[in-house]
């Protein structure tokens, strides 16, 4: 039971981070389908730091945590610029660019990791990075419950996001650009700047979500697999959460629970006796997602101007 709780919280943390990232981008008016690719890149950045750190032989846990997060965030932000440049400056189709970013994220990460692995050991052609010892820096054992520092980071960022989005001038201006960019521009707000900020924040949170995801439960990651549709689950969480950080956090818990079930269902006697094949549990989060969306999308509160390139001449 504790295990289920632990996995639910950590998966919910991933979904919250990434979904809030998507929420910033969409509030500024840019649909970020590329979250999945951003997660992979963030995960790659973080995993590389862990791979090359000598923890626990040298260096302390705090520095490692900080550096890993920093790398993930920087990788995510730089990668998100691909979306920003194409969609804000060049008015490219946001769906195509996002899709390309998802494919590119996985392909580039695989190429980079394989190149690195073969250089270190010519016989190693896998796309896997291991971080068994380094991962321990993130965990504190509280009587069977493995508390991860990422859980705390998520809560802090959740509060910050809420304040930023609703209580600051920047947040309100950002939202104006997603609702009616021409009106925002007419009162002197730079729509381009706001959209850049929105996309880069989504890169920050998406990258962080990526590293949290690959350290949740496993201690090595095969980059060929990307992040298994988690970026899209996060988008669903965002829609279910009606583009509001606090509601996103609640819906992330729901989706996190179903995702966690596929990891730990063997531990429950009544579930184990039902003898349901593991494939069903793997499908569960996606099925729940579809059902939930079917019932909640009708009264969608999406930012009105999302997905439409900003054109100064339009009214």
């Amino acid at each position, binding site marked *: 039971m504790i295990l289920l709780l632990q996995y639910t919280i950590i998966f919910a943390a991933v979904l919250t981070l990434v979904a809030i990232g998507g929420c910033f981008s969409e509030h500024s008016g840019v649909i970020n389908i590329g979250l999945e690719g951003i997660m992979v890149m963030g995960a790659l950045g973080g995993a590389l730091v862990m791979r090359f750190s000598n923890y626990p032989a040298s260096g302390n846990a705090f520095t490692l945590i900080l550096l890993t997060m920093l790398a993930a965030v920087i990788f995510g932000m730089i990668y998100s610029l691909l979306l920003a440049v194409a969609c804000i400056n060049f008015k*490219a189709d946001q769906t195509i660019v996002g*899709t390309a970013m998802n494919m*590119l994220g996985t392909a580039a990460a695989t190429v980079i990791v*394989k190149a690195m692995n073969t250089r270190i050991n010519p016989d190693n052609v896998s796309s896997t990075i291991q971080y068994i010892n380094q991962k321990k820096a993130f965990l504190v054992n509280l009587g069977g419950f493995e508390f991860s520092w990422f859980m705390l980071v998520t809560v802090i960022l959740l509060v910050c996001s809420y304040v930023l989005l609703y209580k600051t001038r920047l947040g309100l201006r950002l939202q104006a650009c997603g609702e009616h960019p021409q009106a925002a521009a007419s009162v002197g707000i730079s729509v381009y700047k706001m959209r850049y900020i929105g996309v880069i924040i989504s890169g920050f949170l998406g990258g962080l979500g990526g590293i949290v995801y690959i350290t949740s439960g496993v201690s090595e990651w095969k980059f060929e697999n990307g992040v298994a549709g988690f970026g*899209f689950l996060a988008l669903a969480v965002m829609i279910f959460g009606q583009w509001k950080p606090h509601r996103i956090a609640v819906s992330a818990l729901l989706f996190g629970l179903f995702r966690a079930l596929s990891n730990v269902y063997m531990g429950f006697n009544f579930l184990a006796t039902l003898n349901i*094949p593991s494939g069903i549990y793997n499908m569960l989060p996606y099925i729940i997602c579809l059902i939930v969306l079917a019932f909640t999308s*009708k009264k969608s509160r999406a930012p009105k101007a999302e997905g439409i390139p900003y054109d100064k001449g339009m009214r």
Partner: protein
Amino acid sequence: MKKFIKSEGGQSFIASILCIILGLLIGYVVLMFIAPKGAATAITTIVKNFFYYPSNIARMKYFGNTLVKTAPLLMCSLSILFAYKVGLFNIGASGQYTAGTCAALYLALGVGAPWWVCVLAAIICGALLAAISGLLKSYANVNEVISGIMLNWIMLYSANMILTKVKESTSPYTYTLASTNPGGIIPGLGLGKLFSNNQYITLAVPLSILIAIGIWVLLEKTTFGYELRATGNNKNAAKYAGMNEKRNIIITMMIAGALSGLGGAFLYLTGFEQWQCTQSSVPGMGFNGIAASFLGGLSPIGSIFSSYFIQHITAGGAYVDKSMYSAQISDLITSVIIYLCGFVGFIKLVLKKAAEKKEGGNK
């Protein structure tokens, strides 16, 4: 020449060629970063693909193999293109492709059905899966991109579970068609003889080209096609003109799904590959289809060539020197090309302006 630049098709063509060149260039730069020594050889290996083999016989055989995999890619690309014309982004093509594969292989291996039954089943299953996305879109306002991705994963796990029933006991792969049910293989009609007796060349290859032409006729020359495109251009206008936009969305998705599903049958019913029941990622065919349809300028005829090109470099990636590079370098190039396709609108605008400027100067 000037006329060519001014025409819509000409602009698409130039934009696509630019995307390809830039994509290859970026691929080359990445290779340079990994290991500068072999980069030039590697990129030419990717572009050369089957020319890698010195003998003509081997070249023809591997050219044939590339064609075998081009047929399903073309189907996926047509599926995406068809939906896109109606304003839908069918990212679920991969799942529909998987659904088609699953239905075809299960009927062929588990029930022993003849090939045409399997092909029909693939079409129906692909269409049904896509219909879910269509229904959700038109009645519940669920974005088809999200529902498509969710269905991709649901379908992948379902296919793994279903096809485990017809799997070899010692390996994760399904039985081979040749040993279990030779009647399940799409007939070759002796076409393989043209490609150094490549047994995998079947009716699927010419049929896929015919279907591409059929889709072009459907979209450009029929009232039904016009209605669908009108729905894509402006949903509300189409509605006021008396077109049933909900029905059109569902029908479009079903046709798109049928095409992707058929793609699955076109690959797995040739016996070229077996399904791996422990597969942990959605097949890339549907995603490469996105690349092919945009690179082909969203024209069914253009798709024939762009599908071939994408498959050509993907196959070429397998020949790079594995001690330095990985085969995924072609995936990287493909995804860079799709990314660049996002800029096609911008490139066309520049071309148009340039053409107009030239005209003004001549006067």
